[in-house]
């Protein structure tokens, strides 16, 4: 389809503003633009149709199954959107006087109360805008804690090799040396490897639990105890909280701070890649280090973003939590785990899970043997899924499993959908044995055929060339 710029006709356009009713003032010559920006000039009809054309080329959770592991692509209730669009929320200036923003304060305080209860934390900030931003904030809590104690020798953050790439990247942004530790054969933390790197230079440990292979680390209490014993703090990456919310609490596992992905676990939509909210919770001993807005509070502590964060996302999450309540929150987790196990077992016998045991809310298929047999890769399978109307799982992650496909069905999928998905996987397994070339060339019926990513990187075209 055409780009919006290719639909532009000089002189076209809409008039949304009235005539200026005061004397017009012009910029001095030295500050003036040389020429008007080359923005599209387009009728509203064409504009509307352009985006309708675009939206037909998007697969959302509302379009179909989206088992993108680690991303918790659950159904996003419409009511959350409606509440976040209330003029009483959208029309509030962040610097309006306190007495004019009591509703916003109530949203934040209520969300904080409910989420600290769910996570077992004492305090929380909603300033971080996304998961990685929450990680940054959380590790800065750890850094400030050690600094405030004058404990300057703690320069290392321990990260398991199964971690999301954001974990080591975050530790580096916080000035730490990253110590990667290998996972045990069962995908969990190798206690001996952990003990070997712990010391008086340990600032903390970043851990996802359940971990990225979908397993709850049964040694979790021992892990957090060992880190604390060495004087470090424990950071909980909340990417996988959906498996355990309302069932077991990170605070009870011994973690000192945590980030949540409200756009994952609490169903505020992902928006094609944001906005999210990376709320950060902490125990009391870290509370004083939480970020604040300098302009809103007049304080100069740490701050990771302007104002109070992605407030409307918090409105959506609060609406969701209030809807589910104390019954619905654990039921969502339990059904997320049930759906994952059900799908894993239905697929098993063709594609094999990397770890043949009960999983949490997601599981990883290991296609390395399959690839040896058929020459068909995880990528080929993913691309053929697209032709079947299914969004592919997360590919080639975690790094500790080769030819990995990571599936997270979530609790909002029905048994029929899971049965259908398993059937699709089984049929692709057969297809790989009969017609691997077809799969190498997939997708065949998608918006585009496989794109040339190497060309995109070597010869970057990053804007319309006109």
């Amino acid at each position, binding site marked *: 389809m055409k780009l919006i710029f290719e639909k532009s006709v000089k002189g076209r356009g809409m008039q949304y503003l009235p005539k200026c009713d005061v004397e017009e003032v012009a910029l001095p010559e030295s500050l003036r633009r040389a020429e008007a920006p080359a923005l599209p000039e387009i009728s509203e009809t064409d504009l509307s149709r352009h985006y309708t054309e675009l939206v037909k080329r998007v697969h959302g959770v509302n379009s179909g199954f989206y088992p993108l592991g680690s991303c918790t692509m659950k159904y996003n209730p419409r009511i959350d959107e409606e509440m976040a669009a209330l003029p009483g929320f959208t029309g509030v200036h962040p610097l309006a006087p306190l007495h004019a923003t009591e509703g916003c304060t109530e949203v934040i305080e209520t969300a904080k109360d409910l989420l600290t209860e769910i996570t077992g934390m004492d305090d929380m900030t909603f300033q971080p805008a996304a998961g990685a931003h929450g990680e940054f904030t959380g590790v800065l809590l750890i850094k400030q804690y050690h600094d405030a104690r004058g404990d300057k020798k703690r320069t290392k953050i321990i990260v398991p090799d199964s971690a999301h790439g954001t974990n080591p990247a975050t530790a580096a942004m916080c000035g730490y040396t990253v110590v990667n530790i290998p996972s045990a054969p069962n995908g969990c933390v190798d206690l001996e490897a952990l003990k070997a790197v712990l010391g008086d230079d340990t600032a903390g440990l970043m851990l996802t639990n359940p971990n990225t292979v979908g397993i709850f680390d049964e040694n979790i209490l021992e892990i957090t105890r060992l880190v604390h014993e060495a004087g470090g703090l424990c950071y909980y990456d909340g990417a996988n909280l959906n498996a355990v919310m309302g069932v077991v609490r990170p605070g009870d596992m011994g973690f000192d701070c945590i980030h949540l992905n409200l756009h994952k676990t609490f169903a505020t939509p992902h928006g094609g890649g944001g906005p999210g909210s990376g709320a950060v919770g902490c125990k009391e001993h870290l509370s004083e280090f939480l970020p604040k807005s300098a302009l809103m509070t007049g304080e100069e502590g740490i701050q990771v973003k302007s104002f109070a964060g992605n407030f409307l996302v918090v409105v959506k999450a609060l609406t969701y939590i209030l809807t*589910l309540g104390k019954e619905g929150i654990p039921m969502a987790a339990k059904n997320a785990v049930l759906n994952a196990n059900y799908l894993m077992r239905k697929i098993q016998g063709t594609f094999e899970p990397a770890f043949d045991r009960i999983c949490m809310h997601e599981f990883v298929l290991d296609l390395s043997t399959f690839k040896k047999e058929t020459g068909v890769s995880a990528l080929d399978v993913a691309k053929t899924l697209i032709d079947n109307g299914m969004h592919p799982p997360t590919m080639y992650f975690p790094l500790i499993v080769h030819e990995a496909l990571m599936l997270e069905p979530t609790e909002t999928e029905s048994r029929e959908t899971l049965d259908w998905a398993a059937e699709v996987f089984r049929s692709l397994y057969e297809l790989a044995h009969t017609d691997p070339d077809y799969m190498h060339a997939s997708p065949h019926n998608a918006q585009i055929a496989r794109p040339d990513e190497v060309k995109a990187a070597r010869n970057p075209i990053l804007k319309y060339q006109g």
Partner: protein
Amino acid sequence: MAGFIPSTREEQLEMLKAIGLTSFLDLYKDVPADMILKDGDLNLPSGMSEMEVSALMSRIAAKNKVYATCLRGAGAYDHYIPSIVKYIPAKEEFLTAYTPYQAEMSQGILQSIFEYQTDVCNLTGMDVSNASVYDGATAAAEAAAMCRDRNRRVTLVSACAHPDTINTIRTYSYGTNDEMIVIPEKDGKTDLEALKALLNASVASVYVQQPNFNGLFEDAEAIAALTHDAGALFILGVNPIALGIMKTPRDMGADIAVGEAQPLGMPLSYGGPYLGFMATTAKHMRKLPGRIVGQTEDANGERAFVLSLQAREQHIRREKASSNICSNQALCALTAGLYLSAMGPEGLKKAATQSMSKAHYLAKKLCELPGVEMVYPGEYFHEFVTTLPKQDEALLALEKAGILGGLPVEGGVLWCATEKVSRDALDKAVQIVKEVLIS
């Protein structure tokens, strides 16, 4: 209700049975038993019907006061948002998709980002834009991080930048154990003499905001020249509405242009979600953080869009990545692109000119009142600082009339006007302040 779970209780039991289990607890056998919450342990309210939740949230929203007229800016601007800009981003597919990892299924999102990147380049005069960062403050902080190398680690930040931006850059600098130094102000603008004194071989970049927090235009070109003479890079934070009429950051000598794109179609929303934009020259392209969408061809030779230059990013580079950013503000970027297409070059120019004109009208009328005068000399865009006798009383009187007055700042009040405020509303505001002052 109860979690939007389709499966009935009966189906759940059948599914458990199908995998050889009898209860949900069997699924959690790896969790130490005494850690598992029991019924009643979780202190949350009971779930509610949609109707109840809707009523409750609406009651909470009603506790906020929404002003008919907004004369407050300071980083959050109340511009007119065309109706279509509110409707299109609410389409469910845009809302519920995620990062376009699978290009064959995500051309709509990828193209919307590509168009947004083009818009940002057109506005700023730069060669390359990323797909967005969280907001203007983080865009500035990420830009400062881009500029550091082994020898040059210090960031100089104008005291006249937004306080939240200064504090965010300071925080990111604290993260990497780097120094951020504030360049003092003089007459409401960056003090060039002070800047000269601070520049040396350890300075990686200089950050200045245009127009600045006081609404004033900085002498950006002079600052660029000083910065470049010292071998540092120049980061300019700009208001995207002003770019409808203002010289581009490229023409003002910036190496990196950043800013807060909330004015491009996003409501005030108590501070978020907003949108950070970042653009730079081809030279620094591979140092940009975040997602970047590129154009390529598919196997049939057709135009296609993909996430590109991923070798910079955390999922590939891990601790060596240019940033940890993953999720960004994609839907806000789509909104900004849509807003710019709806407004077009003429509409954006009009929004900019009218905002500036109305601010100047308001300033003139306010300064006719006893004891009210401009605090700083110099050219300004749509914000300005005045003295204001009986400040609290005047602002309260405005509030009672449904007008959010300017923001109390050091030395006076920071006022803002946009195209959305009519002359009548401005006259009314001035009249209310007048009545307070002469009473």
